[in-house]
C-alpha cells in the first residue's frame, strides 16, 4: 500500500462526493443546498488540485486539467453566492440557487472525469 496513492485517491474521491452532496436535491430550493457543504467542496477541490501539481505524465496533466475546471466552476458558484447575499443584499431565491447549483453540477462532471481517470489508472496498474 502506498500512502501517497491513498491520500491522492482520498482527496480526489472526497472532492467528487462532497460536490455530489451539495449538488443533489431540487435545483431551485435554497434550503436543500447548505453553504458549509459548498465551502467544504471548494476546500477539498483546492487540495486535490495542489496534489495534482508536478506530475509530468499525460494522465497527470489530464487530472490537473479536470481539477482546474472543477475549481473554476466551484469558485464561480461561491463568488456568485457572495455577490447575491452580500453585495446585492438579497436572500437566495429560486433563480440564484439554481445558478449556483448548476455551476456546482458542472464541477461535478469534472470531478467524475477525475474519478474515472483514477479508476482507469488503477485498473491498468493491476493488469
Amino acid at each position, binding site marked *: 500500500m502506498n500512502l501517497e496513492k491513498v491520500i491522492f485517491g482520498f482527496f480526489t474521491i472526497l472532492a467528487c462526493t462532497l460536490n455530489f452532496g451539495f449538488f443533489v436535491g431540487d435545483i431551485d430550493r435554497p434550503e436543500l443546498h447548505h453553504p458549509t457543504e459548498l465551502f467544504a467542496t471548494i476546500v477539498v477541490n483546492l487540495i486535490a488540485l495542489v*496534489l495534482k501539481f508536478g506530475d509530468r505524465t499525460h494522465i497527470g496533466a489530464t487530472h490537473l486539467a479536470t481539477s482546474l475546471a472543477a475549481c473554476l466552476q466551484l469558485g464561480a458558484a461561491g463568488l456568485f453566492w*457572495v455577490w447575491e447575499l452580500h453585495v446585492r443584499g438579497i436572500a437566495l431565491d429560486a433563480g440564484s440557487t439554481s445558478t449556483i447549483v448548476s455551476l456546482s453540477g458542472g464541477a461535478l462532471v469534472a470531478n467524475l472525469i477525475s474519478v474515472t481517470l483514477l479508476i482507469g489508472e488503477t485498473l491498468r496498474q493491476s493488469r
Partner: protein
Amino acid sequence: MGDVLYLILRRLRAPLITLIVVYAISVVGLTLAPGIDPQGQPWRMGFFHAFYVMSYTATTIGFGEIPYAFTDAQRLWVTFSIYLSVIGWAYALGSVFALSQDPTFRAAASRGLFVRRVARLRQPYCVICGYGRSGRAIALALDALDVRIVIVEQDAQRAAPIEIEEFRAPPLVLVADARRPEVLREAGIAKPECRAVLALTGDDEANQSIAIGTRVLDPATMVIARVADPVVHDNLADFGGVHLINPFETFAANIGLDLVAPEVLQLEEWLTGVPGSLRPETLKLPQGHWVLAGYGRFGRAMAQMLRSAGQSWQAVDPNIAPEDEGAEGVAIGKSAEQGLRECDIGRAVALVAGTDSDSVNLATVTMARRLNPGIRIIVRQNKAYNRALIEAAGATVAFVQSDLMTHEVLQALTTPLLNRFLGQARRDGAGLARRALARLDEVFGKRVPWVWRFDCDPAQPGMRHALSQADGPLLLRELLVDPRDPQVPMLAVPLLLWRAPTAAASAHAARGGAPLTDVFASATSAGADEVVLPDPDTPLWAGDRILFAGGEGVEALQRRFLLDPSPIELVRTGYEPPRSWLFRRFSSPTARSAAARPRP
C-alpha cells in the same frame, strides 16, 4: 520553462496544502463561533465575512472586528487562528525562499533561460564547447567579428568569469557536459543560425564525442575540433566532415616549413596577416642540430618534424612518459644543466623550450643562453598571464596554444577557401608558393592584402544575367575591372577557383562532353574542382567561388557585380545599358552594336 514550472509546483505542494487547510479550519471555526448582533440577537458569521476576516488576520494586516464587535467566543477562535495561520504562512514562505536558493532549482531556471535565449537568437553564432584558454581567446576574437557566442562549459568555476569578461555582446553560457546530445541540441547546434561548433575542451575524447554528436545531429553544421591524440585524430578523420586542429603539430609543421620550404610559410604568413600591415618577415631558422627541452606532446611533434626535415636533434626531459623511455635521442632524469650539456648544447643551432611549465621553460632558456650565447630560441608559453615574461626572454618564436588556435579557427571560419589554397600550396611545395609570391609581390609590394571570396551566385540579380551566357561566358578577367571605369583594372589577384563537383560535371555535359579546355588542365592535376592561380581567361560558371587577394575596397567594388546587371554589362561592353523598359525600347539596336566593342 516546463522544468522550472513543474519543479515549483512539485516542491510547493505541501506548503500550499498546509495553507489551504489552515484557512479552511479557521474560516469554518469562525462561522461556527457564536456571535451577537447590535440588537443582542444570536448571530453567526457567514463564510464570506469569515474568509475576509481570516484573510486580513492571517496576513497580519488586522482591520479589526467586522461586521459587529466579536464575542469572547469569536475572539478565542481568532486568537487560535492567528497563531495557526502565522505558522502556515511562515512555512509556505520559508519553502518558497528555500526553493529559490536550491541548486537544482537554480540550475533548472538558468538552463530554461539559456534555452529560451538560444531559441531567440536570430543572428549568426558559434557554439564553443570548453572555455579554457583557447576557448576564451577564440570567443573574444569571434565577438570582435560580431558573431554571437554560445558557451558550454562543464566546470562552473571556469564559466564564472565569463560574466565579467569584456564581450561586446554577452555570450550565452550553459554549465553542462557538452558530450550529451541533449546539451548540444539545447545549445542550438541544429539551428540554421549556428555557423560552427568548436570542440575545444582539454579532453580529446570529449572533443571526439562533441564532434561526432554534432555531425550526427546536424550534418550541415561545421565542426572544428582540437585534437592532439593521434588515435582520436584518425577516428575523426575517418568519420569525416570535421575540421581537425592539432595545435602542436600545426606549430611544428610551420617551423618545418620554415626549414624546408620557407616560401610556403611566407605565403601563409603573408595571406593570413592583418590586412594593410607590413608583410611579416620569415624566421630564417638555421639548419643544424636542435635541442628539445621537454619531450611531451609538443616535444614529440617537434621531434617528428625535425626528423622529416632532416635535422639532427636531442631531447631531454626529467619526467618522461614510460613509452618514450629508451627512445632514440631522448635523455632522462638529468639536472637541467647536465641534460643540456649531454644534448650537445654547445654545437646546437636552436633550442625548443617546450615543457608545460613556463618557469621551467624560462630557466632552460637562460641556462642555454649561458652555455651557447648565439642559440636561437623557440619557447612555449602555457599561461596567458606569463606573456610578459616570455616576451622578455627574447625568443625567436613563442608557441602560444591559444593564439595559434584562434588563428587557425578564425581562418577556418572566415575564409575556408583560403585554407584550401594554403593546403594546396603545402602539398605542392615551393613551386606554387613561389609563383604566388611573385604575383602578390608585383601587385601589393610589401603590404598584407585583403582576402575575400566572390561567389558566382546565380540567385543574385547581377550574376544571373552575366551567367546566362547570352553574350558568351563570363570571364574571370571581367571581375578584375573597375565597375566605375572599365579602362582601369582593379588591384586584385585571383588565388583559387573552386567549382562544385556537380557544377563541373553538368557544365561539362552541357558542352557535349568535349574535353575540358586547357585552362582546366592544371585543375585535373591539382584536384578535380580547384584551380590554383586561375588564368584570367577562365570562363566562370554558376556556383563558382573565387578566392581573391586584393587592395582595400576592391571587395566592395566587386560586390556591385552581384547586385545589379549594369556594372557587368559596362565592364563587358564598355557601354552602360538603359535600365528602364522605356529607355530600352528607345535605344536602337544599331546604337547598341556600335557602342559594343569587341571583347579582347
